[in-house]
């Protein structure tokens, strides 16, 4: 009953949003242009989509197996929390969540933006049309309210990998991110139609920041989850789906920098529009790559090429419209030359490198597909390729991050610039020596990157110091920038330590045997059998001591799930600021006295997550700042 209501609400969304879509078509075909209040449509479709989503959620919570999606992806034995998060743990439910976020952002925009009524109307016309396209996709190809036949007594299982708190919140954050970019697309495309003053940048700003913050957290959560859950201690694998989420993040990060310049100096306005449209196109492209079955990936949903055709249509129409509007734009912006040594020049460099990195990752991810269609070749492009292009790009990036904030607007001089930061350069030299001294036994590459990470942090702190020194108040925007850049520095240190400086011990360990790693003594106490709510676990027990003192008991597990007969490894981690002790338990040896144990020490890993937190914080400061200045 509830599920039928859910479907009705979904249909209502389709019908109501079609009005906005129809008006969009009419206005472009130069047919009679009637005035239409798109804000009302926005409110209605948000309410309907929310109701639809709530009914789907309710159906999941009561394990209503009459719905196919619940029969396939949920189970009565599941803990309640995973019945709830299972709503988006499958294709149909997650697309409905997509739609919900899209209507939600439209709703927020209608209520909170400081734009004129007319401009809001134009923006929402586009946003509602996007919703119309997505809801059509849902109803015609991915209906979560489709009935199951025959009606099963018990459902399949939610993939055990998804039965985890970290993974439960990762999709909502991601969607708030990349679906949030739909509103920046709508705002920019509406601005292209003309009739808006240049202040639309101020309207655009908060939406760029808030979506970026969510996407940053979403990617960070995914990475953190992969780290503790997959039993590998790795946090980034250059899997196509990971790359797909990174692409809009990179262009949005470039956009963050550009929009600040656009707001202040009234240049880069065209480029801001291009980036806004491009970012959303990349979100859509990502959705296509993940859900169409066109690429091999660990993350891929149950792949369906027919669905893929519909998503491709969505991607094509929305991209085409955005690009078409840009090429036929009705606004003219002034043009000024940019010199390399200047704030604008540094931001340009940032954009050049970020966009080049985006393009390279895009090419790497899609190249096997293109080569197979064009040349009938079957190639792989994986981690070695991506790592080899990332490394060289990091250096100019970091250089820009360090000296950029010290350049002047307009035109600056290299000698004057160096003179301004001569104390900083001296400090860099000292830091490098210090880092080398503390780490001289480690590979040179790790020393270089850790030193660079420290340089970024120090350079950012030095900015603050200069304000304090001159007894000036620190502007919020500087605070935001400094926090975010410190985040990057911490991330680099964490990533470098966790990967290059990783120590490993893989062996058959006997019960009672103790091993030394870093300065920990890891004693294997044996294996217990534990019964969980929907699994049986083989739990290893390890006593961790440091210099004779007992620190902790770690309990890594190997879980065997009843319903789907899948096995997962749950690693046990002891974190500190110096690194993580990470233990995973394998199988028992043939002679039954020893077990395969895998023990790692991953230096500085926690700084990766702290770095992401700093990034999100910096973004939040900018976001709040942009709200208060929306005139």
């Amino acid at each position, binding site marked *: 009953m509830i599920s039928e209501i859910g479907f009705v609400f979904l249909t209502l969304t389709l019908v109501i949003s079609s009005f906005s879509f129809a008006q969009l078509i009419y206005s472009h075909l130069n047919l009679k242009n009637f005035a239409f209040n798109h804000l009302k449509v926005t409110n209605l479709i948000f309410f309907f989509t929310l109701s639809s989503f709530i009914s789907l959620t309710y159906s999941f919570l009561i394990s209503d197996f009459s719905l196919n999606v619940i029969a396939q992806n949920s189970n009565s034995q599941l803990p309640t929390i995973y019945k709830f998060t299972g709503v988006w743990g499958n294709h149909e439910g997650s697309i409905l969540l997509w739609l919900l976020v899209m209507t939600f952002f439209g709703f927020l925009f209608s209520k909170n933006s400081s734009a004129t009524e007319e401009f809001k109307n134009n923006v929402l016309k586009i946003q509602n049309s996007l919703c119309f396209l997505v809801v059509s996709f849902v109803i015609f190809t991915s209906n979560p309210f489709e009935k199951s036949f025959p009606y099963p007594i018990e459902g399949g299982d939610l993939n055990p990998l998804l039965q985890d708190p970290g993974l439960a919140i990762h999709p909502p954050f991601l969607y708030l991110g990349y679906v949030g970019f739909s509103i920046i697309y709508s705002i920019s495309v509406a601005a292209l139609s003309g009739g808006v003053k240049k202040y639309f940048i101020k309207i655009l700003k908060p939406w760029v920041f808030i979506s970026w913050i969510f996407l940053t957290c979403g990617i960070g959560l995914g990475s953190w989850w992969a780290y503790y859950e997959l039993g590998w201690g790795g946090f980034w694998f250059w899997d196509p789906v990971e790359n797909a989420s990174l692409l809009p993040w990179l262009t949005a990060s470039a956009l963050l920098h550009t929009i600040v310049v656009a707001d202040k100096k009234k240049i880069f306005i065209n480029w801001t529009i291009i980036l806004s449209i491009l970012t959303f196109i990349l979100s859509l492209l990502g959705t296509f790559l993940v859900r169409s079955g066109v690429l091999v990936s660990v993350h891929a949903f149950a792949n369906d090429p027919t669905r893929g055709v519909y998503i491709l249509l969505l991607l094509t129409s929305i991209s085409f419209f955005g690009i078409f509007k840009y090429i036929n734009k009705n606004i003219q912006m002034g043009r000024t030359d940019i010199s390399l040594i200047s704030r604008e020049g540094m931001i340009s460099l940032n954009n050049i490198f970020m966009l080049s990195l985006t393009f390279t990752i895009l090419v790497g991810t899609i190249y096997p597909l293109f080569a197979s269609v064009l040349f009938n070749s079957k190639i792989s492009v994986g981690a070695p390729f991506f790592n080899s292009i990332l490394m060289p790009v990091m250096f100019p990036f970091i250089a820009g991050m360090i000296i950029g904030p010290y350049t002047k607007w307009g035109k600056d001089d290299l000698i004057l610039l160096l003179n301004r930061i001569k104390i900083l350069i001296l400090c860099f030299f000292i830091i490098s020596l210090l880092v080398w001294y503390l780490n001289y036994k480690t590979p040179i590459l790790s020393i270089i990157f850790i030193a660079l990470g420290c340089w970024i942090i120090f350079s950012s702190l030095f900015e603050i110091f200069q304000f304090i020194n001159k007894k000036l108040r620190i502007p919020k925007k500087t605070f935001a920038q400094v926090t975010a850049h410190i985040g990057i520095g911490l991330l680099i240190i964490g990533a470098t330590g966790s990967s290059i400086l990783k120590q490993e011990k893989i062996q058959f360990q006997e019960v009672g045997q103790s091993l030394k790693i870093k300065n920990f003594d890891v004693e294997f106490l044996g294996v217990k059998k534990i019964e969980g709510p929907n699994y049986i676990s083989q739990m290893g027990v390890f006593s961790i001591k440091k210099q004779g003192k007992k620190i902790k008991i770690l309990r890594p597990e190997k879980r065997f799930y009843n319903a789907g007969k899948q096995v997962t490894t749950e690693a046990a981690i002891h974190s500190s600021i110096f690194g993580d002790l990470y233990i995973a338990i394998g199988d028992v040896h043939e002679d039954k006295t020893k077990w*395969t144990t895998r023990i790692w020490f991953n230096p500085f890993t926690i700084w990766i997550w702290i770095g992401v937190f700093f990034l999100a914080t910096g973004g939040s400061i900018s976001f709040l700042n942009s709200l208060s200045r929306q005139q």
Partner: protein
Amino acid sequence: MIIFIFFMNIILSEAVAIEPNEILKNKELEAQARAIGKELRCLVCQNEDIQNSNADIAKDLRKIVRIKLEKGESKEEIMDFIHSKYGDFVLFSPPLRFDTAGLWLLPISFFILLTFYFFRKR
């Protein structure tokens, strides 16, 4: 530059599926085996390398790499052998050829074009 690239291959090394009895006694050879392992794709998995997979083919390839290293074969010889049996798909970094050249040419061209776009005289 070559040393630089060599180091880059040490980065982000995970080796989860390796069993204790696979690990070579000679630490240097084992390190080489790891470096090679990261470049070889597990053909039946979703985008994993042979060290992070429990699949049969991954185990067999890991074994062959180590057997050949102990025989004294070089990294090139081993990669060539596996490449000749399994084709381009097994290599995570494709060989440089006319149909794969775009992988490097496209990004470089893009970078140059973008630099001109930003710093052009208007």
